[in-house]
């Protein structure tokens, strides 16, 4: 039950399914070793989600120096159109698109768009400037559009 839920989060932050499973295992290890800190009066799922997101962010910090940026800005842009193309995409295709983003763009995109954090909060979490967070989000969205247009339109 929580496996799929956890993977749905880590897949968005990871480069691959293997890495996502590794991050999820790290998160579950934290859950198991700190289970005494869980307050049973509060819902479990949000607590789990926060641990998984934190673990993914920690993984981002660890890999920050190893990661190589993929320059997707060279992709020829086509006008964004055909909403139906997007709506026809499967979950796996969506995840595949997100995983094509650089870790910096991907992490900011996930935190801002999916998790709902503010840029100031993201800047604190990732130890970056607020401007960098905004810039990374804009570039992430731009790159996603490019990927959609390149592969699906």
């Amino acid at each position, binding site marked *: 039950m929580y*496996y799929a839920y956890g993977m*749905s989060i880590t897949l968005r932050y990871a480069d691959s399914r293997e890495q996502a499973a590794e991050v999820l295992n790290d998160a579950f*290890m934290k859950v198991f070793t700190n289970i005494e800190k869980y307050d049973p009066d509060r819902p479990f799922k949000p607590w789990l989600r*926060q641990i998984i997101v*934190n673990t993914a*962010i920690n993984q981002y910090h660890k890999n920050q120096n190893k990661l190589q940026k993929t320059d997707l800005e060279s992709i020829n842009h086509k006008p964004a159109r055909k909403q139906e193309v997007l709506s026809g995409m499967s979950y796996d295709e969506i995840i595949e698109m997100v995983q094509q983003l650089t870790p910096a763009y991907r992490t900011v995109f996930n935190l801002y*768009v999916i998790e709902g*954090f503010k840029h100031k*909060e993201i800047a604190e979490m990732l130890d970056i400037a607020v401007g960098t967070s905004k810039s990374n989000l804009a570039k992430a969205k731009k790159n*996603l559009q490019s990927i959609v247009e390149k592969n699906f339109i």
Partner: protein
Amino acid sequence: MANEQHNDPLEEFFRKKVREYDIEYKEEDWLKLESRLDAAEADNKQHNYWKRYSAAAAIILLFSILAYYTYQQQQRIDQLNERLTRSEQVKNPQNGPLEILPDGLFDFSFPNNPSDTRSEQTLNTKQSSGNIAETTENNPGNSQNERNSNEESQQQFSTSDSYQQSIALAKLSESAQLSARDMYTDFETSDFTSNNLNPPNTIDRSTNTSYIPESSNKFNTQNQLPGRQTPRLTVGLMGGPDISTAGGISDFYDPGYKIGLSVEYNLTKNLALSVGAIHSKVQYTASGNDYSPPEGYWSYGGAPEETIGKCLLIDIPISLKYNVLHFDHSRLFATGGFSSYIMLNEDYRFTYDGYSSGQPQRWQERTGTRHWMSNAVFSLGYEVDLRKDISLRIEPFIKVPMQEVGWGNVKLYSMGSFISVNYNIF
């Protein structure tokens, strides 16, 4: 979470799509997690065993060393006392010459009756006669008897027709001198070499007359060896690792360091007052309960699960040092006192199991706050004299909190070991 409205269609699309997850379960993922859980459990057990056994071994080792040195020291004291008693008996005018028992040992019992038949079998050494002659200088009332005795003895041996007896006499005399010198070296800890042995007929009486009585007066039960003059003022350069933790002696973080200077004033031979200024880097982890920043700081989002503190501070210890045991060129000491902390820079990073918006990640500031007598300090150390005026010390210490310190108001436990080089100014 943010309350901002995300009206971008692309954002809406992704938010909607990621909720439609349908992820296939993979057994291998669980197997990996299971193996990690097993390994973690084994590591945890091993770590706990290691910690317990290490602590037990350290305590046993410490007490064994203390017991050994105490026993050794006590034995030496007993031996010296015994020898002193014997040397006092040598000085006694009622004493007769030394006897050799059938097993070759000295008989230090001195018959009061000079006409004892055993005295004819007595071998009186020149050394012993010398000693007796010397001691008679301090006992003029008995000098005549001694001289007579000596003359008789010398006559006895000078007219001896046995060469073997002369050899035995010489050996015995040397042994007696060795014994006396052994006592001397025990007191004075001076260099002892075979070259220092004078032949029986070249004994320096003036030396012999002085050292035995003088030494017997110097010796005291405080274990203070007179070979080392107690300095009045000593300065030291000290350094070493620092392992700190908050709230209890567990969950240590990376070790920090301590480096600084100390000044020590000897109040008595064994008691000294010591003051220091030590630049310290303290690193520790604190759980949410052990870390208490100013009230209201955690109001937004709750306290973190863990805080990692990295602080630079000046540690000012004031302590009394007592020399517990003395050895030839070293000593065992214990100290007790208080440490005051002046915080130079405080840097704290907060970790949350579940991160919520608005929760602080880090707090860092050059605070400069002072915490007087915040920690009690205890240490047990060993000092070795490298030269007459320079010594090396190894001093494991523990600092136990008496007050909370720093911006986070933590009860900071520290332990480590100083290695210091000390110079006796005068």
